């Protein structure tokens, strides 16, 4: 079609040149993404229909891996762990981030220092952060020793199945909450102060002001933070793996950790791919839900 451009139609030729440039500009990234993300995603679905240890030839097993998943208590457990883990991070991260943002919005001298402190774990290398906490949470380490001195008995937060998951959640929230706090802070600073004053004059309580004025105005940010944190929590691997390796007794084995173990420790690549496909469907559903709910849930000023 491009060669058929008739002379004397500069508008058309310009559109074609623009299309050519657009393809050329987008191609380097798009081709790389095709090879590294899109084809592998299709590959995941394909491999999930086989039994494959990578050493022998893949054996077609149809939906067998999915039937196995549905009856696998370890998988169902890791799905439950992921749900608890994600919900824990979501609720704790967002409520703490909002509270911190409100606090950091105070007009005080030196507030920048506190903003920096609360943000600094965000840039701390993940593994270094996790190793620090792993050390602090050693059975005879600082945290547990301190807790038993406070009368909590023989606490062993990270290596007890009942507490390990929530310990990892808290460590992850301390690490990451600064990012959401800063994003909320910038949204709060965009709320016109006159609105607050007017509401106060009308006799609204601080909670009513927050609920009926601040929250609707920062709802686009709230929504963005919600989705990004949700998907971030679903795919969290490094801190969990470094802190607990999925233990104790699989108490912190999330879906990603389960997938990693099945694939790269037990060489069950077909089964691991079935886990990955399930997680992919969840992420995709969340992403689609985000797009369709966005207009109904989010209040825009204009």
């Amino acid at each position, binding site marked *: 079609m491009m060669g058929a451009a008739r002379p004397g139609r500069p508008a058309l030729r310009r559109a074609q*040149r*623009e*299309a050519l*440039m*657009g*393809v050329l*500009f987008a191609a*380097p*990234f*798009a081709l*790389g*993404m*095709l090879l*590294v*993300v*899109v*084809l*592998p*995603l299709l590959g*995941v679905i394909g*491999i999930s229909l086989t039994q494959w240890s*990578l050493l022998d030839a893949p054996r077609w097993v149809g939906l067998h891996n999915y039937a196995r998943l549905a009856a696998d208590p370890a998988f169902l457990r890791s799905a439950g762990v992921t749900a608890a883990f994600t919900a824990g991070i979501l609720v704790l991260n967002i409520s703490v981030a909002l509270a911190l943002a409100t606090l950091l919005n*105070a*007009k*005080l001298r030196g*507030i920048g220092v*506190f903003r*920096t*402190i*609360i*943000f*600094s774990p965000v840039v701390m*290398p*993940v*593994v*270094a952060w996790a*190793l*620090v*906490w792993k*050390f602090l949470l050693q059975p005879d380490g*600082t945290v547990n020793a301190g807790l038993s001195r406070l009368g909590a008995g023989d606490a062993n937060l990270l290596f007890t199945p009942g507490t390990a998951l929530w310990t990892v959640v808290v460590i992850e929230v*301390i690490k990451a909450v*600064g990012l959401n706090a800063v994003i909320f802070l*910038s949204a709060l600073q965009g709320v016109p102060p006159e609105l607050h004053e007017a509401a106060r004059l009308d006799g609204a309580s601080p909670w009513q002001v927050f609920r009926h004025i601040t929250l609707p105005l920062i709802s*686009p*940010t709230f929504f963005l933070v919600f989705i990004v944190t949700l*998907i971030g929590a679903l*795919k969290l*691997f490094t801190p969990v793996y*470094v802190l607990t390796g999925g233990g104790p007794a699989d108490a912190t084995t999330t879906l990603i950790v389960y*997938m*990693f173990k099945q*694939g*790269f420790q037990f060489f069950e690549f077909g089964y691991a*791919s079935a886990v*990955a496909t399930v*997680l992919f469907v969840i*992420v995709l559903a*969340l*992403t689609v839900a985000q797009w369709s709910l966005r207009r109904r849930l989010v209040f825009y000023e204009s």
Partner: protein
Amino acid sequence: MRAERAPRWSWALYALLILVSLPFLLPLLWLLLSAFKTSAAIFSSPFDLDPARLSAANFRQVFAEYPFARQYFNSVYIAALVVPLTMGLSALAGYAFARLRFPGRDAVFILTLVAMMVPSELTAVPQFVVFSRLGLTNSHLPVIVTQIFSATGALAVFLMRQHFITLPPELDDAGRVDGLGTLGVFRHIMLPLSRPALATVAIFAVLNSWNDYFNPLIYLSREGLLTLPLALQRFTDPLGGVYWNLTLAGGVLVALPVLLTFLLAQRQFIESLAASGTKG
């Protein structure tokens, strides 16, 4: 209103802020301090500040007895490749998605959004299959390529597109009147206006490349090829017990460049992150 109230309550606010800061600040300070102590001292007296009992021996040992210098170089050179490539490719693609009309544009952009949302860990199995068939395990190529084109790269393209959409269209027209082609408009007009957006992209690329743990975990096993996040976990005795003094000293060395950069560029850093958060 708030400014009037501040003086009366400021002492309480400061007290609250200091209290709230502790869980964020203490682990960092504790890491810095412990890196200068012997293993025994880290356990027995974690809050001992006496400079007479602190020494740099751990840092010397890390470099003398382990290939840590080599591993440090690996992380630095991988980031030095990943960051400019991510910036360049995302600027080009972001500009195309924002300002140029071409067939298939929306479809490719939707794929980019999917790539941004999908955890890169999910595609690990087929990626591993391909790279191992090509004989590229135990090489840095898979680590570099997956960084540039997976979630981080897609996020970079998304951020650059959002940025280019905000620039007024008159800019392109003015450039064309001056006789510039698409490439000229991009290079001489658009790129110079994109420094804050490119800085945000660079920040994400540096952090994600420096912190990448999953891909090196899958592809790299030879000691001399490891990058820092994995190397930090290799300070162990033959029975697998952790040499905590060396691990923490290594942790300081890994954190230091990132923390120093952050302290120097703190304001722009936080502002650019905040801006990309509210415009999303």
